[in-house]
């Protein structure tokens, strides 16, 4: 029935435009159908380059299929559907439209056959995710959106410099594994890593995402960082530097989430943490590790969206975002609580959830390669994930103390979206072959061995014990934590202010000195003028000087 005629991303973009143009009654139907039609189109894309066209004189490949690309596009389309379902009754149409084009950008990147196509859809994501941040509608959302846009447009510029350099050097725009041996490939590397929230440019994520609307956060959590993971798999598989970049992100995410008070900022830091696992896996670069990175991206998108949904539902119903003011919500929001806990268990890689079957591929890959330090750090980090996201988020939001808040349960569409995504987390956990069947390399990996389940339970449950033993140390304070963004939000403005004030002071001193000198001279001329000019001199002086001049004149006529 539906012949493959255009890139799947264009279908979603068309849907977004239709949502904007159509009558309000039709919007939900279009918004819900467009991701599903896109999903169908994604599954129709066969392997290899499918669609080429000419753009500004370059041959570009709009659609190139492969198992890996279809897998990422699939989860992006599922995410777009779940996000729209969560949001369609509460969001304004422009938020829905922008979020759909943002998702379309991610799907476009997934199928991009060359670097120019990748760049175009990359920038599409940057622009429309900024709009989604702005849909938060507050002054701080406006400011955070501008900072977010500056970071991403700069990142896009760096990526573009790299792409142009590669074209000039090799004459090819193919997406293929690159080595870090030239300025251009370094630029591409940096440009891609900025979108992955890699250090030192990671603060944008926890700065912007928590300022979005309760619905917008669900979309933001999914696309930007995971397209970046896909780009890393395609462009830099097995790049050893990525192992250390990823490990830094993992621990950065844990530590900053432990310090944080804003519930959606905790989840934002945990995105950096989870993407760190994927980046590490790309750096390890074996087939198992790359499979692990892709599988973890897939399950991560679903459980992180679920966590953002439960936090969004709480925020939507209470208007409160700080953990120090939340607590005890399980009484009146039991479904949101259960779904939040399922998401939290999945992110912690509890057995029988999606995180277990995907994350364990990554740590096993490190184990099989005998990367000792990496393996021990990954295991410690798995415990840390349970600490900062698995328990901390549900404990402080839904249990902790009785905050006195008695919000009603979330609206029905939000509830359905949460139930669907929670079911997906458990379904993937129970039937890992659902996920393994989509992976780029053949899977010879069995997550459910008795020893694996027992060791994972030991690790996680004792991490949980550590949480409750150390609870007095975890008391929430009404604080934020300084990050690298302090440099451009405080240090540079303060320095600029200092220089500005210094120069102002100098110019004021100079002008004051000049004007007082001028005043002194004018006063001197005015008051002391009779010393030099005749107008104020006594008559006698005048007569005397006249006589002297006449005498001189007389003498001179005699001589000459």
């Amino acid at each position, binding site marked *: 029935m539906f012949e493959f005629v255009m890139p799947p991303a264009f279908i979603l973009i068309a849907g977004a435009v239709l949502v904007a143009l159509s009558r309000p009654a039709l919007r939900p139907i279009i918004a819900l159908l467009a991701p599903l039609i896109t999903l169908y189109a994604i599954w129709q894309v066969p392997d290899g380059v499918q669609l080429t066209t000419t753009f500004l004189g370059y041959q570009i490949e709009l659609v190139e299929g492969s198992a890996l690309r279809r897998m990422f596009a699939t989860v992006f389309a599922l995410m777009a559907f779940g996000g729209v379902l969560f949001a369609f009754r509460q969001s304004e149409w422009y938020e829905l439209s922008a979020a759909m084009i943002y998702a379309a950008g991610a799907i476009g990147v997934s199928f991009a056959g060359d670097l120019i196509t990748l760049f175009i859809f990359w920038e599409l994501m940057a622009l429309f995710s900024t709009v989604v941040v702005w849909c938060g509608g507050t002054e701080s959302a406006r400011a955070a959106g501008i900072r977010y846009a500056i970071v991403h447009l700069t990142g896009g510029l760096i990526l573009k410099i790299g792409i142009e350099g590669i074209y000039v050097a090799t004459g090819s725009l193919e997406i293929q594994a690159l080595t870090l041996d030239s300025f251009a490939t370094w630029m591409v590397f940096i440009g891609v890593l900025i979108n992955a929230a890699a250090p030192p440019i990671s603060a944008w994520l926890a700065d912007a995402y928590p300022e979005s609307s309760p619905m917008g956060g669900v979309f933001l959590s999914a696309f930007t960082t995971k397209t970046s993971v896909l780009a890393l798999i395609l462009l830099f598989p097995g790049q050893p530097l990525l192992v250390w970049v990823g490990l830094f992100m993992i621990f950065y995410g844990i530590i900053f989430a432990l310090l944080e008070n804003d519930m959606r900022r905790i989840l934002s830091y945990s995105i950096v943490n989870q993407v760190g696992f994927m980046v590490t896996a790309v750096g390890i670069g074996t087939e198992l590790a790359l499979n692990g990175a892709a599988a973890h991206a897939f399950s991560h998108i679903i459980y992180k969206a679920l966590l953002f949904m439960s936090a969004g539902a709480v925020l939507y119903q209470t208007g409160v975002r700080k953990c120090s003011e939340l607590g005890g919500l399980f009484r009146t929001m039991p479904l949101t609580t259960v779904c939040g806990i399922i998401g939290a268990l999945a992110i912690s890689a509890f057995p029988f959830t999606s995180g277990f079957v995907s994350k364990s591929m990554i740590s096993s890959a490190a184990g099989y390669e005998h990367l000792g330090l990496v393996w021990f750090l990954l295991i410690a980090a798995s415990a840390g994930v349970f600490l900062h996201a698995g328990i901390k988020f549900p404990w402080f939001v839904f249990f902790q103390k009785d905050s006195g808040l008695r919000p009603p349960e979330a609206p029905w569409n939000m509830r359905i979206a949460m139930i669907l995504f929670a079911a997906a987390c458990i379904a993937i956990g129970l039937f890992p072959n659902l996920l393994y069947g989509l992976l780029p390399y053949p899977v010879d990996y069995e997550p459910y061995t008795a020893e694996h389940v027992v060791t994972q339970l030991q690790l996680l449950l*004792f991490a949980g014990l550590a949480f409750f033993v150390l609870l007095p140390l975890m008391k929430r304070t009404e*604080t*934020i934590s300084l990050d690298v963004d302090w440099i451009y*939000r405080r240090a540079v403005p303060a320095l600029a202010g200092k220089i500005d*004030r210094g120069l102002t002071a100098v110019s004021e001193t100079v002008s004051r000195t000049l004007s007082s000198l001028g005043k002194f001279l004018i006063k001197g001329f005015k008051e002391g003028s009779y010393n030099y000019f005749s107008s104020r001199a006594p008559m006698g002086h005048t007569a005397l000087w006249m006589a002297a001049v006449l005498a001189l004149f007389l003498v001179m006529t005699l001589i000459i």
Partner: protein
Amino acid sequence: MTPERERAIREGASHWLVQPRTIRLLWWISGIILALTVVAQLWIPVHAHFAVDGWPGFYAGFGFLSCVAMVLFAKALGWVLKRPDDYYVKPTQLAPNVLKDDGQDDDV
């Protein structure tokens, strides 16, 4: 949940989950499960990638200690990095016209 119970909870009746008796019970149950996961290693041999990870209770000890280390490290880092949460809300002292509002530059 029945509507009556829901109303009672709204009015502040304590939920069964937060009563001291339940909490004590939960600590006991969790303690037993924790112990079981370690004891289970007697029957389920763990293949070690490296040497130490085959030790009985390795994952329990390593998980617990690394969490303690991370919490303490975060606490220490917090002393350096934590700021009141209106830190970025206060205006930056960038331009002279901002300064004029602070009254720092009124001698012109």
